[in-house]
């Protein structure tokens, strides 16, 4: 079995008496889409925050490409290759779609302390940014400010940013949320191809998408992973059916 890119061991995080993350172990292997599902309030976002570095776990291990990333902040983890998208789109609203992606390109090049060269004439920034936009189908919206993009387009833009970062693993927090059926379908197709580039930890409520895409699924309930397995394992897992999918799913 290949070494996991992301390896989480016995992660714990409490808010007062609430155990938001209660001994979670999870890994993400090269080439796979690992879906994380669970009812609202199960602690999915808390988990993503701890992986990305915006929340400090109480205990447990987070390794990225074999390296302990717990001491690193959000920016440092992003530089290692964590390409994260947000449950609620988080963009620079006044910047055009293109400039939002260019920011990721410049970060990847490790060169934000250059003071005199205008970015808009810097083809080493604009070309990769245009490429990333083209891959998610936003080419004709490149000059529109992020604030004026539609909800679905913003989600696409977040993925373009993660692509431009050259992420070694994608952490996608409900990328389908709020997208129309057509958008979801197109994104499903896109993510299907993306796993060859870098593995995806996918948090998603859209079960059609999850069952279509996931190589493995983990089910999180009350901060605990109650089952991990293939799509068929999870569909037929009695505890999962009871806790989450409901009878008849």
């Amino acid at each position, binding site marked *: 079995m290949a070494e996991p890119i992301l390896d989480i061991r016995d992660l714990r995080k409490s808010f007062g008496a609430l155990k938001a993350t209660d001994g979670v172990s999870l890994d993400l292997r090269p080439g796979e889409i690992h879906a994380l599902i669970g009812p609202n309030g199960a602690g999915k976002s808390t988990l993503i925050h701890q992986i990305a570095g915006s929340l400090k776990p109480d205990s447990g291990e987070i390794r990225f490409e074999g390296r302990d990333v717990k001491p690193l902040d959000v920016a440092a983890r992003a530089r290692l290759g964590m390409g994260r998208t947000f449950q609620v789109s988080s963009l620079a609203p006044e910047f055009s779609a293109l400039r939002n992606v260019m920011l990721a390109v410049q970060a990847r090049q490790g060169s934000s302390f250059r003071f*005199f060269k205008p970015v808009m004439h810097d083809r080493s920034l604009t070309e990769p940014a245009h490429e990333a936009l083209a891959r998610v189908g936003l080419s004709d919206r490149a000059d529109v400010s992020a604030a004026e993009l539609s909800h679905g387009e913003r989600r696409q833009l977040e993925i373009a940013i993660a692509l431009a970062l050259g992420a070694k693993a994608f952490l996608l927090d409900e990328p389908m949320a709020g997208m129309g059926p057509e958008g979801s379908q197109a994104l499903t197709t896109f993510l299907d191809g993306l796993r060859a580039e870098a593995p995806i930890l996918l948090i998603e409520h859209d079960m059609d998408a999850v069952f279509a895409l996931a190589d493995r699924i983990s089910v999180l309930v009350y901060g605990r992973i109650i089952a991990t397995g293939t799509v068929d394992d999870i569909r037929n897992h009695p505890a999962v059916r009871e806790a989450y999918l409901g009878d008849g799913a």
Partner: protein
Amino acid sequence: MTRETTISIVIVAGLLAAAFIAQAMGETFYITLATRMAILGLAATGLNIALGLGGLVSFGHAAFFGIGGYAAGILATHAFNSEPLLLGLPGTNQMIVIWIAGAIAAGLVAVLIGLISLRTSGVYFIMITLAFAQMIYYFAISWPAYGGEDGLSIYVRNTFPGTNTLAPMSFFLICFGLLVIGLVFFALIRDSRFGAALQAGRQNDTRLAAVGIGPFRVRLVAFVISAMMTALAGALFADLNRFVSPSMFSWHMSGELIVLIIIGGVGRLAGPLAGAIVYVLFEFALGGITEHWQFFLGLILLAVVLFARGGVMGLLAGRARHG
């Protein structure tokens, strides 16, 4: 060329033309007004890097303005009295040396203030920067070696190679030259990679961190650059008045710089200069009629905030564009 750039050039050229017209009419007082506009415009352009591009509402930039001023006053006094300053180093009356010294001193202080204050944001940041500036203000008041509360006179305006700085027009041109350099510098930074990171951080620092750029370092560097430019203006201000006093450090000064930016247009290229022009004109036109001229300036400020958020630049050049 964008509309923003064109309008900015028109404003800058207008200031230069006004000084030459005043010169032709033999009205040296108007040249002094234009010099004041250029200096305040430069000071506020410095603040505009932190406030306009970075969203860092520093309510303590008077600290840097005053450090620049005191650098000029202290160095000139030592040169005048032929007393060594520190470690046997002499004072100087060379403007260029004074500018460098003032900017470096302000930069070092800005590193210290920034390291602490940039860990906060919003109202806390405003209050911490204010607190630091007030500490320096009271320090200046209680420092008898350099005049304490009474301030420090510069008996002869400092010199610049090749010109007679006592001639109002020559001194104006020096200040104007630095203003233009300051504005070009602002425009370059705004359009650079550093500027992209700084402005992205103002809009959304979660996003900035998520692409792998730590917002703190970017802001600290911006804060220091901003302080150094404001300090440079402070040194010119001291030479304009041939006098420095602790009032350069006072919170009124910090507030004034913010007001200039709001009137002119936050984050806009010639916004601070436009604000300084409006401010000095008001001070001159109404200051002669009533000592309560700032009341009317207050009305203008209110009108800008309520009806013209982009300030003067917003009215002339439309909304800011970000490529």
